[in-house]
């Protein structure tokens, strides 16, 4: 091969593929999985699966940001922490029940993301990623520190109360059902948001920012809104993780989780609704069920991410493209005649 042969690899045009592909199929499969899980899994495995489902909501936000404008949302663990503690504070101090406290956490996550969204408009993709890393590092470190130990419980964290409905505490399968409904609602809303007019504007922005501005799209407003939505998903995920595991500890939400969440989104496939669930299952739930040590889990994440990005850049759910036999398409002459 000539050394100068492969020089145009960086000029591959981006394609305007839709996001959240196959939403109906995805939602049906998700509903089935959530329904049959309690009958197939033992208690410990069900807890792991529920925690995985809660994490996948944060991954869904990361995937949506990446698939629409190519955003590297590395702020997500910080938003998860903020969401979990806002909900906890609302329940313990303000006397809220679980569902209103979750709603408050979502609103808080979205509001805190607004200034970050404003900064996004002024930075390029990689600068925002660096800022995201720094923000997550800062929030995780502050919440683990002695400065906020009264609110967060420091490095040891705090127990998360069980969900309640009309004053009745939900335990066991009832608690799982509450979590499953929340996860399903999060997945149900994603295609609605990202296949709306706003979602299409975001895809145009990814294609060409100047073109989007020239046809009247307020690109700054849409970036801010996207950051808020992605962060709201992160905050909601934080609440659900607290509910699933019964515990919130800031050291679990550090910078390495930013990379893991992005890896889960990319491995599953950012353009597919179920991509986030698939990525979480492969990189989080299965290794946990196999009782792999943390180092081996990280190694698995690294190897799977690398292999996927090299051989299946659109994620595991694009596997069908490789096994499907392509149909012969008529040539232009045949079509015109």
């Amino acid at each position, binding site marked *: 091969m000539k050394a100068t042969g492969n020089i145009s690899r960086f000029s591959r045009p981006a394609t305007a593929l839709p996001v959240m592909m196959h939403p109906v199929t995805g939602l049906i499969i998700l509903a089935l999985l959530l329904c049959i899980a309690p009958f197939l899994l033992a208690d410990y495995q069900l807890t792991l699966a529920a925690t995985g489902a809660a994490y996948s909501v944060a991954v869904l936000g990361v995937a949506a940001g990446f698939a629409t404008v190519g955003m590297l949302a590395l702020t997500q663990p910080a938003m998860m922490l903020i969401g979990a503690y806002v909900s906890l504070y609302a329940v313990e101090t303000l006397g809220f029940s679980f569902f209103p406290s979750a709603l408050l956490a979502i609103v808080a996550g979205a509001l805190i993301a607004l200034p970050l969204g404003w900064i996004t408009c002024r930075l390029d993709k990689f600068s925002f990623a660096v800022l995201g*890393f720094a923000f997550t590092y*800062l929030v995780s470190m502050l919440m683990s520190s002695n*400065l906020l130990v009264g609110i967060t419980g420091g490095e040891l964290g705090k127990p998360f109360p069980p969900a309640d409905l009309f004053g009745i505490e939900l335990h066991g399968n009832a608690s799982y059902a509450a979590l499953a409904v929340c996860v399903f609602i999060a997945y149900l809303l994603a295609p609605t948001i990202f296949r709306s007019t706003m979602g299409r504007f975001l895809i145009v922005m990814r294609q060409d920012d100047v073109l989007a501005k020239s046809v009247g799209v307020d690109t700054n407003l849409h970036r801010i809104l996207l950051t808020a939505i992605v962060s709201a998903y992160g905050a909601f995920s934080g609440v659900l993780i607290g509910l699933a595991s019964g515990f919130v500890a800031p050291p679990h939400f550090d910078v390495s989780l930013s*990379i893991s969440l992005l890896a889960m989104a990319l491995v599953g496939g950012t353009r597919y609704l179920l991509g986030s669930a698939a990525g979480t299952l492969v990189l989080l739930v299965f290794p946990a069920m196999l009782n792999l040590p943390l180092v081996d889990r990280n*190694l698995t994440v690294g*190897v799977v991410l690398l292999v996927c990005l090299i051989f299946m850049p659109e994620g595991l759910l694009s596997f069908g493209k490789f096994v499907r036999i392509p149909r012969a398409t008529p040539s232009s002459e045949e079509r015109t005649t």
Partner: protein
Amino acid sequence: MLLATLAGGISLGFLYGLVALTLILLVRTTGVLNFAAAEVGMLCAFITFTALTQFHLPALVAVLLTLVFSALLGAAVYCGIVLIRPADPLTLSLRTLGLLLIVNSVAYKIWGANSPYTFPNILPHGFVTLFGFNVGYVQLLVIAFAILISLAVWVLTERTKLGLLLRAVSSDREAAADLGVPVISVDLMAWCLATTVACCVGILVAHLFFLAPDMMAPILLAGFAAAQLGEMKSARIALVAGVALGIIQSASSVYFNQPELSQILSFLVLTVGLIVRGKLHDRVVST
């Protein structure tokens, strides 16, 4: 006190600047943001450590062997994650995230159990008294090495034929290829050079602080910040930004006496710096 803090901050800042230099070198030449740059440095520091403590090689030989290893590692990484299936720069950058996790996990598996380690003294220890304050030789030598490495990279990229080729590829890949520049070979050289500089940073960090698989995380973050403040283009601005960040962190950790407040200040400086840099860039473009 002030001088000692300043020396500590400058030596730390130069390390940030050198990490930024490796990032900029690759971004300018190949468009790839190498998230694994610092982890490769950490791996090289562990290899030097093993050569020194288990094989009892002389310090110079151990360091030289590690530098050769790092260059080969750079070539292997380029072939293994870039050349194997070319893609757009964002995808290639994300592949280096996978590499970061792999290198970090491998280091944990091999050396993690007993970490952190004290790196053997390959630089002279002691103090020099400047204006009545003691400043460690190690800090001064780290500053000297960092300046030397920066100068060597500058000479290589600005005053040699290889540097001319690197700049040609960074300026316009397709035009450079049309004019007969061996683009893939130049990419390969850039990866080798970047990992060699990262290796030097890893050894210096291990010598200045301690040796552990997670020792490079804060250095990488600050290196990213410095590179971004240099717009991923200017190594000189990135070096200055790295030194400024180092001094701010060092001074604030001493004077606030609260590591959390020091980190908040660093984050604010980074945010403001990135926004101001963006505004200045917009102004320059519009004029």
